[in-house]
């Protein structure tokens, strides 16, 4: 039973890490209807920017964080200006494919930066001052291994979601964002500046990517494989629904827990290696029951 609990908690906490990445997708999708495949590349480039600034130039944490954030905001604004604005009114699928192109482009740039800054492409360690160690108190009392790093990630995710909720629901910009998400034209006609709003959304998504990049980078090193994190976040998204921040969190928890449990209890029967696809198949089966995800909005088609 303790073993089951341990697996479950580990899964839930790693699910939070997926949620962090999924949040970035949700933000952009909510406000602009763009399914941003480049989110994984943005996570990588954010983590790399931080590591380059912190290690290559020896900046302290807050300075490196602020500068990396500035880089992400710049990328967000440039993306809006160069890629998305010319594609306004194109079918959503075109925008999606454009973000696949953007993902490739950013990955190429990021690798070049890494090569320039560190002269090789091996994973760069990233330290946040938190050890990836089990918490002693829980270990002694309940005999459960829970990493303090995972708890930190969960706490960060919690704070981030709370902050985003406040931002979306209580601030002027947040209301404008929700208006844009509801209806572009109506928002424009009441005087909401669409271009500014999109710039802000991409910047916020860049911020979320930076937070996710720092945590993932501290977990597994800053390397090209970080871009694959986005692929882990996709089943979370379709499970939770594209439009829902809560969905991203709940979906992440479900996927994380189910994946870990399946790996431990189902993996041995099929020879292991199921973590690559299990989340997808789970999300797929789920979609057959609820095609718009857990918290997604049900769309009514009209001719």
């Amino acid at each position, binding site marked *: 039973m303790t073993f089951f609990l341990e697996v479950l908690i580990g899964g839930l906490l790693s699910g939070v890490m997926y949620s962090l990445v999924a949040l970035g997708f949700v933000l952009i999708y909510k406000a602009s209807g763009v*399914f941003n495949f480049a989110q994984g590349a943005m996570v990588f480039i954010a983590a790399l920017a931080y590591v380059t600034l912190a290690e290559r130039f020896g900046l302290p944490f807050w300075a490196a964080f602020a500068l990396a954030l500035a880089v992400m905001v710049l990328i967000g604004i440039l993306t809006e200006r*160069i*890629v998305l604005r*010319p*594609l306004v009114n*194109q079918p*959503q*699928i*075109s925008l*999606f*494919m*454009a973000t*696949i*192109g*953007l*993902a*490739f*482009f*950013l*990955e*190429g*740039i990021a*690798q*070049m930066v890494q*090569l320039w800054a560190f002269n090789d*492409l091996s994973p760069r360690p990233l330290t946040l001052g938190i050890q990836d160690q089990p918490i002693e108190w829980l270990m002694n009392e309940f005999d459960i291994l829970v990493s303090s790093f995972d708890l930190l990630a969960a706490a960060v995710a919690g704070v981030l979601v709370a902050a985003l909720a406040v931002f979306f629901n209580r601030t002027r910009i947040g209301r404008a964002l929700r208006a844009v998400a509801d209806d572009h034209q109506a928002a424009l006609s009441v005087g909401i500046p669409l271009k500014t709003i999109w710039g802000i959304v991409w910047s916020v998504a860049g911020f979320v990517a930076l937070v996710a990049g720092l945590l993932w980078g501290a977990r597994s090193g800053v390397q090209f494989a970080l871009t694959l994190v986005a*692929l882990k976040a*996709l*089943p979370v*998204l*379709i499970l939770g629904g*594209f439009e829902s921040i809560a969905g991203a969190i709940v979906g992440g928890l479900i996927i994380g827990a189910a994946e870990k449990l399946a790996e431990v209890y189902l993996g041995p029967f*099929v*020879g292991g*290696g*199921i973590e*690559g*696809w299990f989340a*997808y*198949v789970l*999300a*797929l089966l789920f*979609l*057959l029951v609820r*095609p*718009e*995800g857990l918290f997604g909005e049900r769309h009514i*088609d*009209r*001719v």
Partner: protein
Amino acid sequence: MLYREAGQFKTSYAADQQLLPIRQDRVALIVLLAIAYLAVPVVANDYWFNAILIPFLVFALAALGLNILTGYAGQLSLGSAAFMAVGAVAAYNFELRVPGMPLLASFALAGLCAAAVGVLFGLPSLRIKGFYLAVATLAAQFFIPWLLVKVGWFSNYSSSGVITAQPMQIVGYVFEQPVEKYLLVLTVVALMALAAKNMVRSAVGRSWMAVRDMDVAAAVIGIPIMRTKLVAFAVSSFYCGVAGALYAYAYVGTVQPEDLNLDMSFRILFMIIIGGIGSILGSFLGAAFITLLPIFLESALHAITQQFGLDLVPGMTSMVQLLVFGGLIIFFLIVEPNGLARLWQITKEKLRLWPFPH
């Protein structure tokens, strides 16, 4: 001047509805086929066959398959490489386990296997649309190669699921030389392209396009959505499966199912974006472009680094390739969303009107 249809009168419905109604197009196609069948085998060397022509044709077939699904039926798929893997492994097993199995029959059966798997993974498309479906097809992309590697039977218990294609033999004749392989692939691809061209202008093709443009409206006018979508998945996967079999037998020879990964699926998607979504010709143009681009980039990088006396950093080519691919995709989507095929169409229209601008 040369390309003008003035004076070509059609006196029957058959003449009006033929594939290439303009005489110059027919002549051009015959010339093109003559070059492909007669001139290229004489002129090209083994490098050309192995590194450019055969992969071009194989990927053109895969792109054709994806174009049927994404371009004509409007169902975005990110799993085309997985269906290629199914085709490759199925063809290998038919050849291996059925004594005296004709090669082309096992290619066709491999295509049918891929079609069956395609229908299975196409089932969610009945309930879900758009991005949800795109993500759902990723399930196929991750699950199928894993299964093919995990279950040893598929690869005859070779290590890590590698399959080694048997020699290609048709009625006792062994296709061994690159030029022979090229001619075989060319024939298969040409016939399947012809079939696709006819399919998309038939009733089934028109119902695909109706579903793509608006599925609710299509349902209202009496098009069976379920059958249309599943047929699109089946036909598309059939093409990808045959492409996978050709990939294994004529191009690489030894395939690990994991080589046919998400990157390959993206590459095929890029082919149809650059070539032209919803265009048979576009699949070929895009495949040619994506096949030639890395070779061109590599030699360009070599030339540049030698010019300035620099060392080529290892891995640089792949980075520049990512950069250029990404940039080109965005460029094409913004500037010419209908791809190279549309540019060709514009050229033809201009030629017909020449020397007048309108």
